[in-house]
């Protein structure tokens, strides 16, 4: 059913516009005076002033891979993040962990793990979907590079950003 919205009937004074215009001008000049008298500060001068110290725990910066307290790479290359990634920024090539490796019982690890930071939209889906708690969105937000290749984070770079995370899943311990 169509809903008809009645236009409000303007009084004679309102029809002149001028009172409304002057009211508007008063509001804007009020804001201007307030900021000129330094009553309020909103903008941050970016490169000199940074928000880093105030960044909340849940801040979503660059996604990165983490290792556990034993230095094991948490990622087992299940490729769920590659699947869920809305802009398809993640590319993983899995490989089998050789039997003489210390962590051979984990069986699988990423051979290549690349995140294209030009594509990444920092949505955090990868972190949410990860069954191994291996990928986290860290607080790095100034991701720059001179060319497209530099903007692709490879495994090494991802672990460098990610660092170590302790605790969390203890799926691969002896008792399982």
């Amino acid at each position: 059913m169509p809903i008809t919205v009645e236009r409000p009937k303007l009084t004679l004074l309102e029809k002149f516009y001028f009172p409304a215009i002057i009211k508007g001008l008063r509001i804007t000049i009020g804001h201007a005076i307030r900021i000129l008298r330094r009553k309020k500060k909103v903008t941050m001068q970016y490169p000199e002033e940074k928000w880093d110290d105030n960044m909340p725990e849940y801040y979503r910066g660059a996604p990165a891979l983490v290792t556990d307290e034993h230095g094991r790479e948490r990622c087992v290359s299940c490729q769920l993040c590659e699947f869920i990634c809305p802009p398809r920024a993640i590319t993983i090539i899995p490989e089998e962990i050789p039997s003489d490796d210390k962590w051979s019982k984990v069986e699988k690890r990423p051979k290549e793990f690349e995140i294209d930071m030009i594509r990444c939209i920092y949505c955090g889906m990868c972190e949410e979907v990860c069954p191994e708690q291996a990928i986290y969105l860290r607080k790095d937000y100034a991701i720059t590079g001179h060319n497209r290749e530099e903007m692709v984070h490879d495994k090494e770079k991802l672990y460098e950003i990610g660092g170590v995370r302790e605790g969390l899943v203890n799926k691969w311990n002896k008792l399982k």
Partner: protein
Amino acid sequence: MSAAKTQTEDLVNVQVDGHWIQVKKGTRMIEACKQASAEVPHYCYHPKLTSPGNCRMCLVEMGMPPRPAPGQEAELDNDGHAEISWMPRPVIACANTVAEGMGIRTQSTLAKECREGVMEFLLINHPLDCPICDQAGECTLQEYSVEHGKGESRFLEDKVKKPKNVDIGPRIRLDDERCVLCSRCVRFTREIVDDDVLGFVDRGSHNVLTVHPDKPLANNYSLNTVDICPVGALTSNDFRFKMRVWFMRETKSICNGCARGCNILISSRENKIYRQTPRENNEVNSSWMCDSGRLDYHFLDSSARLTDPMIKKGKSHETVDWPQAVRRVAEGLIKYKGDEVAIIVSARMTNEELYLVRVLADTLETKNVDALKCHGEGDDYLSHKDKRPNTNGAKVILKLRSPGSKIKSIKRGIESGSIKALLVYGENIASKGFGDDVLSKLKFLVTSHILANPTAKLSSIVLPGSGYAEKRGSMINATGRLQLLNKAIEPPGNSRDDWEILQDINRAIDGKDFTYELADLFSEMASVVPALKGLHLSGVGENGVQVIETGETIPLLEREAQRVKQGLIVG
């Protein structure tokens, strides 16, 4: 509903979840439910194998009409069916057959609680390593735990440790912790391929699947156990950790390993094939295929693939573009008259390509056209001794009575100099008796192949074609069934669909109109070839159609039919 349909001779009335249906006498309850669109979860049951009923996942509630006392009339409800009295205990749906007036409840509280209980037991010792398990995504344990599971574990004790990552054969890896002991693999090796090497040892919760200590699971059909394994206990070494199943696109096609033409699914992602699995076709391969055919796709990704048409300049070949290559082939061929030209085709080519070769031979007025014969070892199951998938196609299209019979005379012709130009399609004849000394006598040699080989090295012009997974077309298998190839991936580089190359050469010589659709070419061929009369490409379907009678039978299907008759399997 009106009165119940009267019981015809071999149909019985069965009530599934409150709806009455008619099914054939002797049908398993699980199949009756399937016909009523009530899917019953199961692990051990497989229609091509016997039913031991050991997984207990298919428990349903069952009821029968009470037997009337002497002289008593059966009480009928409004629809004319007798009232069902439900049994207090569930039954397994996979090993019991239906009876007249039977009632099945798949969604009752009892049935649901049974499934929940069975799932809980199955998952007690499960390692929950889905992130590294290749089965994840097509695992019935995952699916059923979502649909029928409790969602949480009440198990506080330590899980039983079992062997993981066990090498039980050259192509298969076993993970006992994931195994649900359904015994499908055991039954397959025992019943289908007569290679009884698998079995269960130990008792209780330590019960594990194991392989015979001296005999690995190495038969040529071993990878079928991976397909039928409902969980990730058996995984293929070839596919291990290559790609997750949910990324892959499945293309229905046929195997090109031998003349059997097993129906397959090609799984690919981003122009790369990751695996091939059998596709059910009860006229050709049932639900199985051999390992050699299944793993014979790696050559498509080989570094020896030809990617550009090439022309020989002096001692080396030079890359050229397609129009130039086609023009050079046409110019080279029309220089010679009639029987100075010979064409050797491969029975790997599709019917459409063979038909275009036939047109070319007619235009050039040569009778020196033959397909190379290539026989190897066959077996008593599926593998055929003819290692070319379309020998029957070559027979039908090129009107060859016995393929390979003219090869000798062609060789003699080259040696004597009466044959000056030779076209070779899809075969490396240098390894089939045509030595350097023979081929160097030719004035003009054109090869179309997908891989670099000695024949190509000697050729004046090399045309890169497409592999079986890179093109569409039809083939006729050993039993005379016309089946379709479908395109799963793109051919690499500048290589093209073979029928397009052939058509370009034909049109460069005869100047007729082009056909732009494979379907049109098929129809044109069907109007000329008697065996294909009245067929259209769209009418062939994914299971193929029988076009000629060859008198051959498939041993494996024969035995399956026998077992169906004995009531051992559903089929």
